[in-house]
């Protein structure tokens, strides 16, 4: 194993000076980290960052930090994608510029980052920011555990980022199949980085699932029955159940792989009684529910957006709820379709193939519900709605390719070709990513008090959707032509034109990413012209629009009483919106604490130590985590009181702002349908 060395197996050779590309990647990462530190120092913002943000237990701030992590990792994951597309465009009968070992790291980190450190934090961020407000709650059920989830996820992301600088990343793909990922065939730190990043962040996600579920079940405002919940919250309810019950499978699979690699056990080895297929079984037991964990919140966003921007009530509420529940349950019955080709009998394959075709039905129901919401609505084509319409068209195409793949005989031909790559990107980009980008643009004013620039949002949308088609439609063709996935170079000339087109598509997507960046820059620069003064910039329907933008720390000074579906809309219609209470009460809020980020940091240190065999550091970090938890669990004084007069001051300022606000922020929009609106009280 390791010698008793203070640095474990970490040596000077672990630094990436063996390759220019690797060194550049490391350089960019280090520079990135240093510039963040530099900017904060330059702005004199350390107090703010440490005491108001890093130590915060406020779900809204935690949500914003999650989304920031996601957006940073989106860029990082996209760089991986651009590298792959450009390599494949030129690598006909040629080495290209990426040697195989490096190319393998690139596709492995691309998938790992996009799923675990872009999509998962993005959804956790949106849920954290919005869901408690939608149910009329002041916070999630367990604010401290919420912070721990954030910081453990960040620990995992930092492990992946640091693998660029110290050591290498895994070459075993984002799924890490043994025996290749075992220590016999891939010794070294790469797979260990992957295992620990995934394991640590997975624990954070399981905790988030518990947190979200308890919040929805137990923290709703009076009158907010389950069947008055907004659709976004319903999708989170089912997503949370999936998180709680699916992540244990990933925990078990990665733990066993870890034991094989670190302690020389034989769960998945090629001999000595190992059973490699068990890894694949366990991994996909998690992996299939995981893709529904990713997509359901996006479906939730689309439900909210389509109703608000069609200026019409969401069609088929009950069918949407039942479809969501059906998807949740069925998602646990299809997992073998990820390994149809790996030796199962016809009976097993046909059972799972049948279940896979069945699971497309509830999603189809949802698509019809969304279309019927739009039908006879008065559509407003703001960016969130553009992403929604783009999703509806493009996701259905991807869904069709999925139904094809659900049939084992077809899958035998298409498995592990670029057809599969095109299929799942056809689900994830228009489905998951468009949903989260729509949510980001939809709820940005709620988070920061000003709207995002719509011109650049529209440009971002067009770049993303055109870029998506140009990048991925060729991959369907290539799959049919027989091109396998993950190819570092190839010898078939007829593939190259398609790959060049695909690379051009990646370029267009890059323009989309730039548009997103410019949008953010311009919006911050011009924020005074785009202030959201009422808290309800889109004439929304659910309770998060009842709070100010940004919301007060306690969200609602007085918890709302919910009378029906579309609670906020009903309040506006019946004239009880923006009511000023006669008196305010004290509100109890959780105190900030550094124990959360300390546990995250210790989690990172533990992972790093286990990877590099620095045993003293591993023990020390475990001790720090244990102490942190015990200290926290012995602290009966973890809340502070916001006095009624402090609350009143905040609320008075809000009502003063409302007095300056237009009656209805949407009233000037050419698409506004002119629904009678509640006048904000002065």
């Amino acid at each position, binding site marked *: 194993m390791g010698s008793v060395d203070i640095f474990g197996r970490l040596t000077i050779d672990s630094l990436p000076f063996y390759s220019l590309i690797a060194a550049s990647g490391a350089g960019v990462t280090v520079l990135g980290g240093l510039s963040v530190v530099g900017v904060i120092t330059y702005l004199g913002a350390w107090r703010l960052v440490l005491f108001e943000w890093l130590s915060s237990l406020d779900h809204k701030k935690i949500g914003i930090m999650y989304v920031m992590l996601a957006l940073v990792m989106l860029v990082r994951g996209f760089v991986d994608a651009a590298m792959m597309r450009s390599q494949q465009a030129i690598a006909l009968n040629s080495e290209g510029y990426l040697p195989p070992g490096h190319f393998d790291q690139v596709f492995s980190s691309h998938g790992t980052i996009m799923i675990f450190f872009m999509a998962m934090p993005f959804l956790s961020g949106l849920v954290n920011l919005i869901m408690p407000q939608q149910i009329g709650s002041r916070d999630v*059920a367990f604010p401290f555990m919420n912070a721990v989830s954030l910081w453990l996820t960040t620990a995992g992301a930092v492990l992946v980022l640091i693998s660029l600088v110290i050591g290498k990343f895994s070459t075993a793909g984002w799924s890490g199949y043994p025996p290749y990922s075992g220590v016999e065939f891939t010794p070294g730190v790469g797979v260990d980085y992957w295992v620990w990043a995934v394991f640590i962040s997975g624990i954070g996600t399981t905790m988030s699932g518990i947190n979200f579920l308890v919040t929805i079940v137990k923290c709703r405002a009076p009158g907010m029955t389950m069947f008055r919940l907004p659709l976004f919250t319903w999708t989170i309810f089912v997503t949370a159940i999936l998180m709680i019950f699916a992540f*244990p499978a990933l925990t078990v699979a990665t733990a066993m792989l870890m034991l094989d690699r670190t302690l020389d*056990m034989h769960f998945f080895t090629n001999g000595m009684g*190992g*059973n490699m297929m*068990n890894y694949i079984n366990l991994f996909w037991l998690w992996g299939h529910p995981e893709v529904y964990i990713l997509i359901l919140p996006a479906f939730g966003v689309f439900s909210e957006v389509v109703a608000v921007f069609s200026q019409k009530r969401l069609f088929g509420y009950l069918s949407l709820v039942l479809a969501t529940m059906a998807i949740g349950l069925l998602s646990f019955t299809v997992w073998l379709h990820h390994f149809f080709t790996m030796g199962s009998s016809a009976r097993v394959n046909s059972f799972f193939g049948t279940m896979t075709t069945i699971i497309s039905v509830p999603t189809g129901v949802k698509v019809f519900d969304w279309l019927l919401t739009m039908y006879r609505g008065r559509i407003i084509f703001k960016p969130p709605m553009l992403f929604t319409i783009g999703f509806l068209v493009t996701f259905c195409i991807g869904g069709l390719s999925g139904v094809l793949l659900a049939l084992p005989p077809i899958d035998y031909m298409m498995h592990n070709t670029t057809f599969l790559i095109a299929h799942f990107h056809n689900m994830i980009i228009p489905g998951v990513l468009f949903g989260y980008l729509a949510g980001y643009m939809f709820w940005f004013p709620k988070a920061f008090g000003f709207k995002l620039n719509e011109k650049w949002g529209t440009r971002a949308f067009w770049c993303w959707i055109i870029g998506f088609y140009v990048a991925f439609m060729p991959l369907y063709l290539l799959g049919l032509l027989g091109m396998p996935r993950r190819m570092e170079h190839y010898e078939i000339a007829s593939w190259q034109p398609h790959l060049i087109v695909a690379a051009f598509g990646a370029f267009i997507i890059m323009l989309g990413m730039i548009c997103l960046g410019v949008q953010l820059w311009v919006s911050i620069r011009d924020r005074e012209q785009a202030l959201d003064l009422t808290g309800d910039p889109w004439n929304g329907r659910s309770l998060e629009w009842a709070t100010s933008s940004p919301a007060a720390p306690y969200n609602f000074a007085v918890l709302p009483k919910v009378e029906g579906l579309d609670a906020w809309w009903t309040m506006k219609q019946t004239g009880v919106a923006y009511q000023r209470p006669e008196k305010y009460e004290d509100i109890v809020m959780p105190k900030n604490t550094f124990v959360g980020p300390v546990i995250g940091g210790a989690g990172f240190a533990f992972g790093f130590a286990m990877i590099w065999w620095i045993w003293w550091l591993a023990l020390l970090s475990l001790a720090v985590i*244990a102490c942190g938890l015990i200290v926290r669990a012995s602290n009966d004084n973890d809340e502070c009181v916001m006095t009624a007069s402090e609350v009143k001051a905040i609320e008075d300022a809000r009502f003063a702002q409302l007095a300056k606000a237009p009656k209805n922020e949407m009233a000037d929009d050419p698409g506004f349908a002119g629904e009678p609106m509640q006048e904000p009280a002065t």
Partner: protein
Amino acid sequence: MSSIAAMTVSPREAERYEEKEFGFWLYLMSDAVIFALLFATYLIMVGNTAGGPTPKDVFSLERAAAETALLLLSSTTFGIAAVSLSAGERMKVLLWLAITFLLGAGFIVLEIGEFAGMIAEGARPQRSGFLSSFFTLVGTHGLHVSVGLIWILVMFGQVLFKGLTAPVASRFMRLGLFWHFLDIIWVVIFSVVYLPGLL
């Protein structure tokens, strides 16, 4: 010291304790899935002895019985501590917590002895897939019990220094859920691992 029945807390605080209990219950459900998958793996790999020791070679009925007795008894003694807590009897809580700790520690000592003995005879987790899955399944349970023992110590300290307050009582009851849950897992362990292995 007040009994739980006599405690008064704000409705908000009471809601918080209910939320924590439900949240902890959900954690136990996720833990149940982890153990279920470890059991499934064990069943899949129990025959993968790679020419090495088989279950019959390494399991001992007497030792399994002793471990079972200790753990089962400790669940009961914890229950007695819980009854004492509800009645507000602090010294009894400390006494029965201590007894529970000793019984649990005894279980761990026996289990470490079992593992050490197996390893000394060459039945190491590195010997075969069967042994890897055995050590991981039973070892994960043992790790949980060990964490439970640490929790019992922390609880002992809190009862000693803070008394039987509402937050302490709430944590105590969650520890009870954890401890009884581990006993249930042990029932499955001896029914799936030790007894069939010795048949």
